[in-house]
């Protein structure tokens, strides 16, 4: 492990990679601050740039930097404007915005930055401990277990979609998997579902799909519903006094400690991610706070601000565990990162640590660096970066649309791809209207090929579907997957029956 860390240090501390972290964090903060634009859109827009770098370590470091930056930027707009750019920072606005209203915007930003820094850093330490262990276990897996594990991951993502949403999330995952089967795969050497179209021979472009699923609908939504970009009272003009007192530091320290751990482990679960971690972190801290402190929550409590901020950053780091060790993304954002890595001919998974340790370790080291940069570079710059919040939407939206078009064009160098982008974008917007979650579609699309490859290999090895019974672990995982999908519906049904007084709770 020490060897790996040293290798990671030497890779991450090269001039190019340091510049990548700084650039990524700044760009992420910049765009993440814009209300309505989440990290997925920003990363989707940045992918063509990252891929054209050619170096997988640099690309992943850049994108990871953008990811942290976006989360940090999202907190800033939550605190200053009460307009969270990211779902993961909604809980930040509960106490951050009241603080800003009381003229303590500077203090709120400092607490957010320190909490993010600690959450991210402790998360990175936990990642360093758990990822190699999990990787070595995962090396024992065969195709059958891999297939089952991916099914569990996909089911968990559907199961976490929320009440009444499981079927929709499942439908989207299946649609994503179906889209992945279009084109000529390496497995069978014959085109499938191309409808005779040459343009579909190589399948759908991943960048086009990522842009169409996230960046385009978000921009269109800003046009359709101007209330979404309507901003609360702008407090960015009064950012002063960034210091916090030792007493305040002492009171948030245990919150940060608890939420780093809790956030990290929630982040590791597929489908849970930063949003659930931040809401749960807020709720837990409110419940265990002293009576008089509980009253403060929602009115500008520093604990209420530190909890979701720590948790969402720790969860972001945690979500890298399944990506780096199993090659299974647990969230839309990590799915996009996985797509970028595949485009660069790197397959994340347990072999990544063995075959390409420099990528694995440099990404982890760059996480420390990224968190440090957010703390020492972005925090003092915030009053200036916050000026972007005053860019009028009449200029902003055409630019966002232009960048999605450019991204798709650069990715495939093909004007037909732009038409596909618009077509998919319209479909994605309509799906969003109807509350169909889009992240599972992209995750399904990206995992589709791997899922089918492992399924095929398992089938070939045991000459049929018998592989499910041959290996008890496969069967166990598949049963877990089925339970994950069926349980939410069963519980909601019981809750309804109980409400109606039909059944007594047991």
């Amino acid at each position, binding site marked *: 492990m020490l060897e790996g860390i040293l290798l990671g240090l030497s890779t991450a501390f090269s001039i190019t990679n340091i510049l990548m972290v700084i650039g990524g964090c700044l760009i992420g903060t910049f765009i993440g601050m814009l209300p309505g634009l989440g990290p997925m859109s920003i990363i989707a827009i940045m992918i063509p740039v990252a891929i054209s770098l050619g170096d997988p370590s640099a690309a992943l470091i850049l994108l990871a930097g953008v990811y942290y930056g976006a989360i940090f930027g999202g907190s800033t707009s939550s605190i200053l404007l009460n307009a969270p750019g990211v779902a993961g920072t909604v809980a930040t606005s509960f106490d951050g915005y009241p603080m800003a209203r009381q003229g303590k915007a500077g203090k709120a930003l400092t607490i957010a930055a320190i909490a993010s820094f600690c959450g991210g850093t402790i998360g990175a330490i936990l990642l360093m401990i758990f990822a190699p262990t999990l990787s070595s276990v995962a090396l024992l897996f065969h195709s059958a277990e891999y297939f089952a594990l991916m099914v569990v991951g996909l089911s968990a993502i559907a199961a976490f979609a929320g009440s009444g949403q499981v*079927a929709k999330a499942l439908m989207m995952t299946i649609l994503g998997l179906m889209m992945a089967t279009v084109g000529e795969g390496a497995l069978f050497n014959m085109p499938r579902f191309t409808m005779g179209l040459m343009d579909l021979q190589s399948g759908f472009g991943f960048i086009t799909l990522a842009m169409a699923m996230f960046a385009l609908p978000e921009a*269109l939504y800003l046009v359709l519903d101007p209330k979404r970009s309507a901003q609360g009272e702008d407090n960015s003009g009064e950012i002063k006094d960034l210091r916090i007192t030792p007493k305040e530091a002492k009171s948030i320290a245990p919150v940060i400690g608890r939420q780093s751990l809790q956030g990290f482990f929630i982040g590791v679960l597929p489908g849970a991610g930063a949003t659930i971690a931040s809401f749960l972190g807020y709720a837990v801290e409110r419940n265990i706070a002293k009576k008089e402190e509980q009253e403060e929550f929602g009115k500008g409590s520093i604990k209420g601000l530190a909890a979701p901020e720590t948790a969402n950053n720790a969860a972001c780091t945690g979500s890298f565990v399944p990506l780096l060790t199993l090659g299974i993304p647990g969230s839309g954002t990590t799915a996009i990162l996985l797509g970028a890595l595949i485009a660069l001919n790197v397959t994340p998974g347990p072999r990544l640590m063995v075959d390409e340790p420099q990528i694995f370790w440099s990404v982890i080291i760059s996480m420390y660096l990224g968190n440090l940069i957010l703390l020492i570079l972005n925090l003092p710059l915030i009053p200036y970066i916050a000026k972007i919040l005053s860019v009028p939407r009449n200029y902003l939206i055409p630019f966002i649309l232009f960048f999605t078009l450019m991204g798709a064009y650069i990715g495939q160098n093909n004007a037909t791809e732009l038409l596909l982008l618009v077509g998919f974008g319209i479909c994605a917007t309509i799906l969003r209207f*109807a509350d169909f979650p889009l992240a599972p579609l992209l995750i399904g699309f990206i995992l589709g090929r791997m899922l089918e490859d492992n399924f095929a290999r398992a089938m*070939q090895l045991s000459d*049929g579907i018998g592989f499910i019974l041959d290996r008890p672990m496969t069967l166990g995982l598949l049963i877990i997957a089925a339970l994950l999908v069926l349980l939410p519906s069963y519980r909601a049904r019981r809750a309804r029956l109980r409400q109606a007084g039909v059944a007594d709770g047991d």
Partner: protein
Amino acid sequence: MALDRWIALVLLGICLAYGYAAFFTMDQGLPPFMQRNPIWPSTFPKVLAVMGVLASLVIIFGLEKTSTPRDEAPSVMVYRALKDFHIWPALALLGLMVAYALLLRPAGFILSTIGFLVIGSAILGERRWLVMLVVSGFATGIVWYLVQVVLGIFLRPLPMGF
């Protein structure tokens, strides 16, 4: 019927078409040696088609139980708010994107991009033409430089024939 169920109906159609291709047409040209394999190119799609049909039926018939009443579901609420949405500017911007896709090669990057950004802002209600021209001209120049020179991807700057 709310929008989500209509969409599920469309998705059911897609799954049926996909399933038809997987079950009936795909294996026709399969070479005999591949037919002895336990897995065919159509195996995985068949599984997906069946699951897709089941999932869309669950949505269409509202079989999934929720703890909240259907009237409070976000999809139903968004559907009701549709009439307050600014549909026309959004459609105009989509049309503009299609026009951009078609004109990018023949009209060249600089002209089509400046046109896209200026018309896009105009659709959203901006009327300071000079500012719009300067901002989009400047941005176009920077992006062209970055893509062409830094990333090394060819983008024809001028219209065809120049």
